[in-house]
């Protein structure tokens, strides 16, 4: 079946169905990573510039850090990605012991919307922009980083990539990817910057060392 739009395009360009694809212009060299410590510092400082809260943590410190977060943000309900790493850190158990009610990340959207806190990992990190890159699957539902008013991402140095080129090279086969660069924001009313208009108002990033 011929497609009239494609036909019109070919007619306008003077091409036919047999016309070859010309060579795509070359792009530039991607940014190369510096030392791992420099990359971590750069990533965390970019997150801070975006009004996110970022810090380095060791695994034993998670307990007290979560306790502080839950008090500061008055968290009652939370939902957590069910990934091996977050399970290994015992996030769900710690939340339970702090009296936080857990909602399954696969629960229906109305229930998920009642959560105050969503905890995820990230699949990749882009230091230049302070960006978290999240894939999507049944263990890593999209709504966890979207519906709750607070989003916490627990990340590790091995997720850092030099530039988004490398992220794309590794992840372009995913059916869904999201780049998260700071908390949800708008300046639509009198150019006043307001955080948390539809997505999370607070973004926490903890780098585990």
């Amino acid at each position: 079946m011929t497609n009239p739009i494609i036909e019109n395009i070919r007619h306008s360009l003077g091409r036919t169905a047999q016309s070859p694809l010309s060579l795509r212009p070359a792009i530039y060299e991607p940014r190369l990573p510096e030392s791992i410590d420099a990359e971590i510092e750069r990533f965390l400082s970019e997150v801070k510039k975006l009004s996110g809260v970022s810090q380095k943590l060791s695994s034993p410190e998670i307990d007290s850090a979560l306790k502080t977060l839950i008090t500061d943000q008055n968290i009652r309900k939370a939902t957590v990605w069910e990934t091996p790493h977050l399970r290994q850190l015992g996030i769900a158990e710690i939340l339970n012991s702090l009296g936080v009610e857990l909602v399954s990340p696969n629960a229906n959207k109305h229930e998920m919307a009642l959560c105050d806190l969503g905890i995820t990992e990230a699949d990749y990190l882009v230091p230049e922009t302070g960006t978290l890159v999240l894939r999507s699957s049944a263990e890593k539902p999209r709504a966890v980083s979207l519906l709750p008013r607070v989003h916490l991402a627990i990340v590790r140095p091995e997720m850092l990539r030099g530039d988004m080129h490398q992220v794309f090279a590794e992840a372009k086969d995913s059916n869904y990817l999201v780049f998260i660069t700071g908390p949800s924001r708008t300046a639509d009313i009198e150019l006043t910057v307001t955080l948390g208009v539809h997505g999370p108002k607070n973004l926490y990033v903890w780098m585990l060392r």
Partner: protein
Amino acid sequence: MSETPTYIGFEEYSEHVPPCIPLAVQQATSRFVGGRAARVAELPQWEQLRQIGSDIRQHTIENMDVYLTCLEEKVEGAGGHVHWAETAEDARRIVLQIAQENNVKNVVKSKSMATEEIELNHALEAAGIEALETDLGEYINQLAGTGPSHIIVPAVHLKKEEIAALFSEKLDIHAPTDPIELARIAREVLREKFLNAGMGISGGNFLIAETGTLVMVTNEGNGRMCTTMPDLHVALVGIDKVIPDWESLTVFLKLLARSATGQKLSTYTQFITGPRRAEGEFGPKEFHLVLLDNGRSKILKDPIGRDVLKCIRCGACANVCPVYKNVGGFAYGSFISGPIGAILTPQMLGTQAARELPYASTLCGACADVCPVKIPIPTILRHLRRRVAEGDAFALPTISTPIRVTAMLTSLALAQNWMYRLGARLLPIINPFFRKNNWLSGMPYPLNRWTKVRPLPSFTAKFRRWWNVRSAKETESTR
């Protein structure tokens, strides 16, 4: 196009712009211009990036049939549905049909120029389907019943007091005049709508042919809501948004937010390839991509004008435009305003309906200097002025040989300092032959082409002397 386009009276519209609009627009544009400048200064390879961005867009336009064919195949391979809409009417019919087949009553929309272009909301509402804008600025405009005054901050012309009054009236609440509180109210109202909508409609910033991926860039998160909460996602995207591959995308993502808002990246960038694959991951069960032509394939025919399709919709050209800053977005009478609107609208609606727009510019060239994909906007404006005057002919007009030779010699002489000086000294020699008072008239062919319309001032060769004296005085006074 099937509909007769409405005449766009830029001059008349701009006379009726209330003074609050340019004031608010200038606050926004100066913020964005400053932000952009800061981001550009950080990136030493900025000019190189612009050049590559421009080259890739040019390449994509020249091979658009190949990339669109590949895109269709990949989207369908990923389980999505592709629809082709030749006209605005086709697009409205397609979207409406998808909604009706799925028995949709409520639609949530994220900001999309393509849906504005086809005036989708009216069509949905006429069919009894609620279509709600969810970008905060667009939501405010929808409540107020007005259009966007700026591409990035569409409700910038409204004061917080006006918005509070609007919320109080339309939502039947008591809304305070604090922007943060107003945003919170919108969040609560719209949250309910997101969770209960049957369909999400979005636009798209890019379409990656390599994998059939829709790329959406937003800041508020409403774009994510619209494509994650409802079971049905319909993306309406112009065919010009296609790009070859993910590697090319890195260039455009680096250019887009820096040029638009002065951010390095917008908050949320989504990459959507077909519908969800697992029940628990959220995201739509069904994904539809409506590819909109609406005159674009015809624009490709004009080798000068078609560069307008390189546009990535950052709005940087409007932010620096002295005309836009004084009239705001409404005066352009179309879904897209500013210099880019002045070169796109006449090509879409025809140079008769939009004949005033190519003249809505001082040709100062500031737009071309900031355009991240180097669209030669002033060149296209001049080209369109000729199309307006000559009845839409794409071909370059033929110029008689004497005129062409004169123009060539003139440009040669003006480009060489010594020739210019010599010419300036010699030209006064001809004064006595044609002089009437201080004017020259009745010159021989081919110069009579000029002098029979208006006389030339006589040659005096005084400028350089005047300039030297003036510079000396200035140096004196600043000492």
